[in-house]
């Protein structure tokens, strides 16, 4: 089982009445009113310190991603963060950039170049995430026509894979990328290329792409493992339908996690910051979420007919008190033993071998975040590391340059 410390890099000091005063945490929160660069300078230092701490404490990987005009994640360029991490982390941890939003780049050759640079700078520790991206980022912040979201994504993927694996120079004649000379210097260090990680929110096409290309699929939501179940089942069913072979390492899921000395302390220490996340950081109007045309007609039909918008709305409207958050699995919180037990249950239920652990949540301050990371690394990670170890699966999607743990797997929690 791989544990990845994933950092969203949120603004930790939004005003108390933010969600009453402003339309959205994403796209339109007015920057001069709300985003103080002096604070951001401090946040970036904390964020990188927290990622580096996770590396020192033995996390398998460090995860970062890309969002735009977003107060819960102002990492417009995750590649800049990955570059900083490449010089400040050990040779053990993988660096998972989950990822670069391909449709935004024209030519998408830029992504092939920067990921190849990062792969070389990290000595082959890079996992290359190719998300389709959210409608907020792609359509609203970067102005991509909604119905071009998928076509641009597929074409960028095709161009990048060719740029990484075919000898240059060659011509590429795409609809959105027309290049006479494709010849990036360098190509990636990992051969044939860095492992590709797809991330999604439940689009049928993304599941099929992961299976057909043998990439990993990670379900990235903030609603926890109960909610993830049906969507992860959808991925595994797609895999079976298309003749894929089950391997838990082909899948990952994101989970918000709060670890304290005791279950009671977890509530006392973290509730305020988790509540901040759910009330402010997810304050996004539904008309931003789903610009018509962002989903293909097929995926729109799937989403509407399986009631996804209704289900998300239902979850979003729940009162976010501690018991609800814990009972619905939106957060996994408590003592290291409690957290390890629930994570084991969650990963078994979802059949995933990559845990994307969200350990800095909302307004969580630097010291408390360090505690969360430390308690997870010392008390939880050893207990879940051995999950799947005895089942004979090989992790074929882990960066070649990241060192595999040499020691025998620790016993699975509860066993």
């Amino acid at each position, binding site marked *: 089982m791989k544990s990845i410390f994933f950092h969203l890099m949120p603004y930790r000091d939004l005003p108390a009445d933010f969600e009453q005063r402003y339309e959205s945490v994403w796209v339109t929160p007015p920057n001069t009113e709300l985003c103080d660069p002096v604070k951001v300078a401090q946040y970036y230092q904390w964020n990188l310190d927290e990622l580096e701490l996770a590396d020192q404490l033995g996390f398998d990987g460090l995860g970062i991603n890309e969002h735009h005009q977003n107060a819960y994640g102002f990492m417009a360029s995750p590649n800049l963060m990955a570059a900083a991490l490449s010089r400040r982390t050990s040779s053990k941890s993988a660096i998972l950039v989950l990822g670069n939003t391909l449709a935004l780049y024209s030519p998408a050759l830029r992504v092939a170049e920067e990921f190849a640079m990062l792969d070389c700078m990290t000595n082959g520790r890079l996992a290359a995430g190719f998300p389709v991206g959210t409608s907020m980022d792609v*359509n*609203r912040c970067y*102005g*991509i*026509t*909604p*119905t*071009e979201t998928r076509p641009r994504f597929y074409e960028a993927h095709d161009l990048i894979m060719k740029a990484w694996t075919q000898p240059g120079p060659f011509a590429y004649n795409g*609809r959105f990328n027309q290049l006479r000379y494709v010849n990036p210097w360098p190509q990636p260090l990992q051969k044939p290329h860095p492992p590709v990680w797809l991330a999604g929110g439940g689009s049928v096409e993304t599941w099929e792409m992961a299976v057909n290309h043998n990439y990993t699929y990670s379900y990235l939501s903030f609603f926890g493992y109960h909610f993830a179940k049906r969507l992860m089942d959808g991925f595994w069913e797609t895999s079976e339908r298309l003749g894929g072979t089950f391997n838990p390492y082909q899948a990952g899921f994101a989970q918000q996690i709060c670890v304290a000395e005791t279950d009671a302390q977890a509530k006392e220490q973290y509730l305020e910051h988790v509540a901040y996340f759910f009330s402010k950081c997810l304050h996004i*109007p539904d*008309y*931003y979420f*789903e*610009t*018509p*045309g962002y989903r293909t*007609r097929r995926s*729109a*039909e799937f989403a*509407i*007919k399986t009631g996804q918008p209704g289900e998300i709305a239902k979850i979003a409207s729940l009162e976010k008190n501690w018991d609800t958050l814990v009972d619905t699995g939106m957060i996994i919180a408590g003592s290291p033993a409690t957290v390890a037990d629930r994570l084991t249950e969650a990963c078994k239920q979802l059949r995933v071998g990559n845990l994307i652990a969200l350990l800095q949540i909302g307004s969580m301050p630097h010291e408390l975040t360090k505690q969360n990371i430390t308690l997870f690394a010392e008390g939880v990670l050893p207990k879940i590391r051995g999950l799947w170890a005895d089942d004979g699966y090989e992790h074929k999607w882990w960066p070649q340059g990241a060192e595999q743990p040499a020691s025998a797997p620790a016993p699975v929690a509860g066993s």
Partner: protein
Amino acid sequence: MADPTETYVEVKDGAFKIRVLQAGTGAAPLVYIHGAGGLFWDPLLAGLADRFAVTAPEHPGFGQSQGLEHVPDLWDLVLYYNELLDTLGIERATLVGHSFGGMVAAEIAANNPERVDRLVLIAPIGLWLDEHPVPDISGIPPADLPALVFADPTGPVAASMPAPDPTDPESLLTAVNSLSSVLQFIWPLPDKGLHKRLYRVKAPTLLVWGAQDRLVDPAYGPAFSRAIAGARLEVIEGAGHVPQLEQVAATRAVIDDFLG
């Protein structure tokens, strides 16, 4: 009111299957191109059918009409309309377009001036004035839309507008697909270079604007009329973005007067 016939017309060997409403006994063809609100037989079309052979095609990808994937950009859409007119046997027609349909009609009139007899644009989009940004209709709460579209957002016309049934997945899906088929040509701003092409419009042109249009500000009226030689601009009081519904008689009067 003349009842239109509804047929599905195949264009380009079946690549497009387009719902077409037709009515009228007049010899002169008139083609109506609808806006993002959709195609329905309204009093304006019924009135026009008294004098013209009215043909109102649905936009590809809108409602039940198919073929959006074959018109990836605006240039393809203009060529498609040429194909559609050929298929329908309409060599030359009066074009009437509303809002997004007005932009499409203007593009056709600029690209193929020989096919357009007269041009009526009702609150067309297609130009951009920094001081009057056209709101993003997909980026606001649906409940805020009537205030942008209608002079009287709480009046009977606003109340009679069809809305998707939130409990019916098919209806929701059709609404999403329909809007996406329009956004494909106007994202992120409805300025795709029409201002460079309007000089080619040769047809006598009437511009009709609701004085209380808060979606496409009436300031766009002079912007269009300056760009199209000899264009006439009529502003209808008491109407918003859909003057043909909010002020039926006044709108019909200026259009009838123009069409002679």
